[in-house]
């Protein structure tokens, strides 16, 4: 198994270190290889909404920076852990830049989902299992719900968790044990 852990270089808090250590131990025990990518403030350009990744260079961002490496590693992994600080109930700026610039991995077209809403369909047949884990020392119930809604409500294939303190370690491991950490079919 190939695991990729993407995290925010600017939020390496004690809580992050606990989470990172927990995941590392878990993955090594499963015999997985681990690649790590940390995103700093100046590593990624902002997505500028040009849609060049759809209509100029389909499948690749037209801005050639660290995101090229991230997207390549992402698509070759079996499982991706996206560890993000929770800021205002969503991803931190560094992590949101990476989420925004993941767009090339989808197709531009509009499709209708089973619930009747619109979505861009998958570009690839298979994707790594994506687990988004938000961490925050202090988080309101409102922001906690918001983070889960942002990550899970619109994208059915994503698993999302919040890690608040070391008491959550057992819950996270239990949750991971229930998930097949392998490539999955792209769905709408």
């Amino acid at each position: 198994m190939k695991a990729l852990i993407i995290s925010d270089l600017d939020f390496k808090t004690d809580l992050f270190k606990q989470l990172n250590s927990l995941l590392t131990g878990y993955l090594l025990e499963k015999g997985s290889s681990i690649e790590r990518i940390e995103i700093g403030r100046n590593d990624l350009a902002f997505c500028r909404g040009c849609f060049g990744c759809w209509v100029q260079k389909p499948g690749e961002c037209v801005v050639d920076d660290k995101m090229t490496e991230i997207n390549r590693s992402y698509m070759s992994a079996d499982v991706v852990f996206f560890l993000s600080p929770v800021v205002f109930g969503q991803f931190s700026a560094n992590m949101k830049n990476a989420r925004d610039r993941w767009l090339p991995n989808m197709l531009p077209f509009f499709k209708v989902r089973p619930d009747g809403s619109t979505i861009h369909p998958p570009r690839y047949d298979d994707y790594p299992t994506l687990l988004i884990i938000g961490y925050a020392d202090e988080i309101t119930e409102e922001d906690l719900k918001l983070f889960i809604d942002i990550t899970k409500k619109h994208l059915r294939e994503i698993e999302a968790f919040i890690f608040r303190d070391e008491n959550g370690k057992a819950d996270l491991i239990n949750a991971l044990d229930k998930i097949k950490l392998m490539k999955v079919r792209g769905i709408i």
Partner: protein
Amino acid sequence: MSGDKNNIVMISASPKAGTESASAFLADLQARFFRDMGFSTLRLDVRKSLIRGNVENDYALMLEADAIIITFPLYIYCLPGMLMRFLQDYLDFCRVKGRNNSGTRIYAVVNCGFPEAWINNEAVGVISSFSRSIGAMFRFGLLIGGGGMLVGTCDAPFMRKTMGRISGAFIKMGEDIKIKGSEKIDNILVEASIPHRLYHFMGNKGWVISAKSNNLKKKDLYRKPYQPETSGESG
């Protein structure tokens, strides 16, 4: 704070460069309405502010605002990373200055490329959370579906109802600022007045036309540059 002057800061946060964005269009529209209502208005452009290194000047203006209206496109179901950078750093700025935005009213205007306005809901929640973090009062949001077609079709007869509802929402914001309203106001949802199926059809056709203008064929849009050599279960 500027007391009775009712100083409104309008923040336009489209990361698009070189083309007229829906967010800039909506901020222009707000400016016209608010000036007509007698407000003092100020426009900030997040992209330009970050590029020009003008951020601290703009933050100082935000600290003095009676109302802040944040207009932005939805990116992957939430705020663009560029706007998150701007707001995250603003919170740090307030902390360093030992200031908060007590008394400032905040409104969100979000437009998305999908026809469903409700998809913007969580993004408005993020602006509400940001408002709490800086001690400001979040009031309500305007959620627009099909925002991508506003600039090109705003004068078309079939968009009259949509544009009327958007204008009505801006007037409601202005009135709320004027009376310093505190009663809860629900978010306002507005969608382009065309059937979703037609919106999808036109959008899908548009991608193919754009590809052809870049000397690509329709099949090129399906390229898989990061396709691993093998896929499936492993480990």
